[in-house]
């Protein structure tokens, strides 16, 4: 299977956007998961609901919300523009933001499940051994929740690779900049008789995520291994 330049570009973009989205969302997702797993506070159910929002709302609505927030006249967009000279509109960075937002609920849930399964008594043991709260997170909590972190990263990456509605609504379909695999597939789907091209692109998507799957399995297995001080 040889790829056209346009197909290559879509694959490379999907990979780049998926990786950036997952890596940037991971700390946020961990912080939220930790907040939800470990703390009780007024309005917790609201935070929880907010985290699920991107799952519940149709992607197009999410894309529209992002557009409203990040367009030059939007509150966040104006701020980004004024302070950092950054604009997400029509840029691959905007696509990464869309993908990250869509991946967030999946990542938070997976990490939260693992965090809730961590035996708090082991953290207490670490504290009595002299580890500060932070040190305990780094050396005990995070390694023990590695299965959830890996699963979350995997789900998030897969979701990013499949993300369509929010992306096209937020940053449009610009070849080489925001035309990821799903957007390329969409374009092909609009034309009768392009089923062959659609199939090729779909197979590329699947291959990308099989790669991610293997990486996450490897990560989980390594985490269970002998010398797993992750940091």
């Amino acid at each position, binding site marked *: 299977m040889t790829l056209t330049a346009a197909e290559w570009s879509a694959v490379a973009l999907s990979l780049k956007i998926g990786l950036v989205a997952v890596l940037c969302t991971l700390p946020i997702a961990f912080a939220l998961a930790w907040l939800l797993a470990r703390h009780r506070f007024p309005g917790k159910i609201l935070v929880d609901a907010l985290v699920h929002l991107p799952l519940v709302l149709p992607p197009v609505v999410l894309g529209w919300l992002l557009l409203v927030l990040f367009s030059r006249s939007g509150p966040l967009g104006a701020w980004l523009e004024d302070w950092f000279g950054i604009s997400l509109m029509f840029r691959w960075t905007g696509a990464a933001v869309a993908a990250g937002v869509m991946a967030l609920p999946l990542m938070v849930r997976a990490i939260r499940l693992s965090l809730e399964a961590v035996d708090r*008594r*082991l953290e*207490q*043991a*670490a*504290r*009595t*051994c*002299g*580890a*500060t*709260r932070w*040190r305990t997170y780094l*050396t*005990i909590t995070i*390694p*023990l929740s*590695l299965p959830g972190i890996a699963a979350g990263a995997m789900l998030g990456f897969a979701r990013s690779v499949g993300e369509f509605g929010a992306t096209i609504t937020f940053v449009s379909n610009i070849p080489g900049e925001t035309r990821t695999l799903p957007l390329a597939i969409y374009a092909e789907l609009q034309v009768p008789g392009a089923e062959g091209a659609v199939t090729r692109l779909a197979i590329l998507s699947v291959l990308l995520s099989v790669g991610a799957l293997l990486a996450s399995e490897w990560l989980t297995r390594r*985490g*269970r291994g*002998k*010398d*797993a*001080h992750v940091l």
Partner: protein
Amino acid sequence: MSFEVRVEKRLGGHAVAADFTAEGPVTALVGPSGIGKTSILNMVAGILGPDAGRIVVAGRALFDADAGIDLPPEQRHAGYVFQDDRLFPHLNVENNLLYGQKLARARDARIEAGEVIALLGLEPLLRRLPRNLSGGEARRVAIGRAMLARPAFLLLDEPLTSLDEALREEMLRTVERVRDQFRLPILYVSHNPEEVRRITAEVVRLSRR
């Protein structure tokens, strides 16, 4: 004065309370099952907050409800052998043993890793994960980890459980050495009167009121 413990704590419907001052290096804490021995050790270690009271170890106030003192566990410098081991499941035996040592700012290296490992017969197990250890092996790692955390005092909750006669004897001799040589204050929970008799004359007996 090694330990001054005056605490109260409600746990579910049950109330745990203790009030004792111990002079000697080793203090045995005995009493029927469920009376609150482990809870008291947890309070001294700082992982269970008393409702009221005061805890002073070797002249250092770790907790004082009235004075608003409540040191976090990592600043109390306990060497705690938990009743239920609590080995870190993702770290091999060696990293479990060295976990505390790595963290302590070389306060004093009186107790050597090599020595402890030899004493506890753990060399062949250093690369093993805790889930592949026998009960007694895990117990020994828990003891080693506590001793190597460069503790200012020791909390031993039935430390000799699951150890065979020879190891028991070895461990008792080690405790005696720590007692005599390093003069670390030790709070020692045991159900074995013979063990207690051998190690100390200072016994705090908890009982139901």
